[in-house]
Every structure is written in structure tokens, then in C-alpha cells.
């Protein structure tokens, strides 16, 4: 079932009320929360918001054609200004990304703990500090769009932004303190606490997650290099060229060309978004698979179920980015399949979380 041999060693590696348990359970919880938030955002906000951006851009171009400067400016500010459509989208993307990355970092710190030469209570308090910051930042980033500048003492930064930055600072302080602990350990030459060192099992699920994770990360960086080398500068040049065409055509009264430029601009934004989303998700899922390979000894499930969850997670990790890219050709059908890929990752992660909770419950029930 799981690899830890004796109850004493198992309890030492995963102590109740300990920093490692908090970081592993909290980390998986953060990742799950971030992914569920991302799926809800993709289904209910993303496309609708993009549609409204397109409508206001067209309205802005129409206002240019009519010579109505105030209306043209108002439509653009409604898209990109404070409380605008891009802020709505951007803060939700930032929330999604930061919850998940903090979850990864929590899992990683749980693995590094044996190399941190600090007393256990200090490690635990740092873990609590980390988790508070990791929750505060994304929640406050989410609130930026809704709170705006209400009661803010500053001209361009609201209270939600200030508290989000405070959350980030807490995470930095906790991580820096763990780094100081690693440094102390290296200077003392003591090495890691062997009983707590976590290595991937030689089980099928661990090896599949390690190999699959490494391949996904490599594929993600290859795709990123391809995008940066072939498309990035071309997309940036087309972006500004299409805006010029919109304005010059509208000012000249050529509504057809201006409208075509608005449509092409929307398509270009979609093309950029799918490439960036595919790149970010494939690397993110690869990193997650690598991290979960280490957590397998704590997943108290039968080998069959551990295999099923590992395979489900890897399948979802491939389906989501591939079908995000295919949205360019297949549209919303591919988008729907990509969402199913995301759902598979969520289901697999939930299955593993249940296994970790069972492991924790089993250890707590053992008298040592």
C-alpha cells in the first residue's frame, strides 16, 4: 500500500500538527482550489468577457468613424481602465495562477524540510505564515476588481492590492527563513534528517508521474521556445498594425475595413491567449506530476487506485493544453474538451488528497 516501514518512522516523516503535514495537505488544497477556480473562470467568465471586449472595441471604432472623441475614449477606458473588462480578466487569471503556484511551492517546501536546520516549532510557525500569505494574496487579488480604490489612501492602488502585496511579503519571509535553515544545514555539514527524506517510490504511479512530468515540462519549454521564436514578435507587430488599420479606416469612413480589422484583432488576441495558456498549463501540470511523484508514499490507497489516479492526472495534463491549442481550429468544441481535461486533473488530485487524508488518519490512530 505505502512504502513507509515502521509506524515510528512513518509518524516522524508525517507528524500530526507538523509543518510537513500542513504544507502537503495545504499545498494540495491550494492547487485544487486554484484549478476549480480556473475551470469556473474558463466556463463562466473568460469567453463572455472576451466577447464584451470585442463589442466595446467595435463601438469605439464606430465612435471614431462618427467623430465622437469622448465616446471613443470612453469605450477604450471601459475595456482597459480601472474596473474595466481587462482588469476583470487579469485579476482572475492572477488569482488562478498564484493559488496554484503557491500550492506547488508548499509541496516543494514539504520536500525540502529535512534539509532545513531549524527547530520543529519554528518550521511549523513558518508553514502557518506561508499558508496565511498563500491564501491572502490570491483572495485579495480576486477582490481588486470589486473593491477598486474605495477608501484607499493611494491614487492608483486600492486596499485589496495592498493586502495582496502583504500576502506576497509573508510568503517571501517564510521562504527566505526556510532558505536560511537550508544554509545553516549546509554550513554545519549535518546532511538531511534521513527519517524525513522523501524520495519517489519505485511504484508504477511514482515512476509514471516522474517520467510523464519531465516529458510535459520539456514539451512546455519546447513549445515556449517555438512560440517566442516564431510568433511573439510577429503577433506584437500585427497587434499594433491592426489597431492602426482600425483607426485610419474608421477616420476615412471605411467601415468595412475597420470592422474587418476589429475581427482580425479579436482573432489575434485569441491566438496569443491559447499559445500562452497551452505553454503555462503544460509546464504547470508537468511540475505538478513531478511533485506528486514524491507524495505517493503518503497516498494510502491500493496500487491499482494509485495507478488510476496517476494515469488520469497525466491524461488530463495532455488533453487540456493540446485541446487549448486546437481551439484555434475547432473553436468551442476543443475548448469544451480542454475543460474536461482540466476536470480529469481535478478528479485525480482529489483522489490523491483522499489517499493522503486516509494516511494521516491511519497514522494518528496508531499508538507509538
Amino acid at each position: 500500500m505505502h512504502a513507509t516501514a515502521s509506524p515510528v518512522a512513518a509518524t516522524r516523516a508525517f507528524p500530526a500538527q507538523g509543518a510537513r503535514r500542513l504544507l502537503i495537505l495545504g499545498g494540495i488544497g491550494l492547487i485544487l482550489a486554484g484549478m476549480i477556480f480556473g475551470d469556473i473562470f474558463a466556463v463562466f467568465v473568460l469567453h463572455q468577457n472576451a466577447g464584451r471586449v470585442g463589442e466595446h472595441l467595435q463601438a469605439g471604432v464606430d465612435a471614431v468613424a462618427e467623430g465622437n472623441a469622448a465616446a471613443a475614449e470612453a469605450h477604450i477606458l471601459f475595456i482597459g481602465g480601472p474596473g474595466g473588462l481587462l482588469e476583470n480578466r487579469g485579476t482572475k487569471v492572477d488569482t488562478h495562477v498564484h493559488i496554484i503556484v503557491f500550492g506547488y511551492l508548499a509541496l516543494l517546501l514539504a520536500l525540502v524540510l529535512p534539509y532545513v536546520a531549524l527547530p520543529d516549532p519554528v518550521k511549523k510557525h513558518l508553514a502557518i505564515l506561508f499558508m496565511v500569505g498563500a491564501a491572502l494574496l490570491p483572495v485579495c487579488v480576486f477582490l481588486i476588481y470589486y473593491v477598486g480604490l474605495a477608501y484607499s489612501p493611494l491614487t492608483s492602488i486600492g486596499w485589496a492590492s495592498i493586502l495582496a502585496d502583504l500576502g506576497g511579503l509573508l510568503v517571501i519571509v517564510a521562504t527566505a527563513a526556510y532558505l536560511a535553515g537550508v544554509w545553516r544545514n549546509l554550513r554545519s555539514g549535518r546532511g538531511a534528517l534521513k527519517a524525513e527524506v522523501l524520495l519517489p517510490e519505485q511504484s508504477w504511479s511514482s515512476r509514471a508521474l516522474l517520467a510523464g512530468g519531465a516529458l510535459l515540462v520539456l514539451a512546455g519549454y519546447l513549445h515556449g521556445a517555438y512560440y517566442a521564436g516564431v510568433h511573439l514578435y510577429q503577433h506584437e507587430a500585427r497587434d499594433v498594425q491592426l489597431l492602426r488599420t482600425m483607426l485610419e479606416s474608421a477616420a476615412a469612413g471605411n467601415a468595412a475595413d475597420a470592422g474587418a480589422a476589429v475581427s482580425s484583432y479579436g482573432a489575434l488576441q485569441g491566438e496569443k491567449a491559447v499559445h500562452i495558456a497551452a505553454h503555462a498549463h503544460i509546464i504547470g501540470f508537468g511540475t505538478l506530476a513531478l511533485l506528486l511523484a514524491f507524495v505517493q508514499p503518503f497516498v494510502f490507497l491500493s496500487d491499482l487506485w494509485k495507478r488510476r489516479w496517476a494515469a488520469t492526472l497525466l491524461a488530463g495534463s495532455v488533453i487540456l493544453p493540446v485541446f487549448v491549442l486546437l481551439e484555434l481550429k475547432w473553436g468551442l468544441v476543443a475548448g469544451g474538451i480542454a475543460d474536461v481535461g482540466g476536470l480529469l486533473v481535478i478528479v485525480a488530485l482529489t483522489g490523491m488528497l483522499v489517499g493522503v487524508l486516509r494516511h494521516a488518519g491511519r497514522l494518528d490512530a496508531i499508538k507509538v
Partner: protein
Amino acid sequence: MSQSRRLLIVGGLLLVILGMTYGLYYALFDEHQTLENITVSLARGFSLAAGKELEPARTALDAYAAAKFEYVREVDVHSHWSGLALLLILFGIIFDQVAYPEHVRRFLAGAMVAGSFLFPAAVLLQTFDQGIFPKALAAVAAALLIVSLAAVAVGFARAKDSQG
């Protein structure tokens, strides 16, 4: 702990802190101003075009493009430093399982740490200098990263037994 693992873990933790500190600095002192620049320049372009002032409208669009160029790269730097740092630490924990002699592992670890620091740094440099040097540096650092990542993946695949 072997030198290659030490290099990856310490390099990764330093890079995590660098990435997060940069993100915090950016959020506090630069992001809002850059986003405002993007929107205000574009709005001004539309407003001027509505008044048939096309040359100033083009200038406003150039300012919009410059601000957006800067924004995209600054966000990329934050996410790549943080993401690559996680990978370095992760590899650091299990680097003894990569089936190469220690001197090769040390070389690979050095290449990954150097690539992980230099690639985002070169992207950041592009916001100050749009010449060939930052682009070439970014390309070389990205190639260094990809080649060393591929070599590490092969090394993991060749490993047969878990080592402590």
C-alpha cells in the same frame, strides 16, 4: 549532499526569492503605472483619430505598443523565474538519481541554474535595450535550459535504482 544537488537546491531557493521579490516590487511600483500607460495611450489614440488627428494618433499607438511590450516581458520574467526555481529545487532533491557521473551532473546543474537565471534576466533586459544582444542572450539561455532539461530527462530514464 553532492555539489550538484547543493547547487540546484540553493540556486532554486535563491531564484524563488528573487522571482517573488521581483513580483512584489513590480506589483507595488510598476505594474499599475504600466497598465495605465497601455490603456491611456490606446484611449488617446482613439480620441485623436476621432478628431481626424491621425499623426498624433499613430504616435499614441506607438506608446501603447511600447508599454505593452514592456508589460508582457515583465510578467514573463516574474513567472519564469518563479517556475524555473521550483523545477531546480525539485531536481535538486532527486538529482543523485540522474544516471551520470557527478562531474556531468555538476555541469548539468550549473547549466540549468545559469539558464534559469539568465533567460528571464535577458527578457527583462529587452525592456531597456531592444537591440540584438538581449534577444541573443535569451535565445542562448533558453537553448541551454532546454538541452540540459532534455539531458536530465534522459538521465532519469536511464536510472534503474533509487539512491539516497
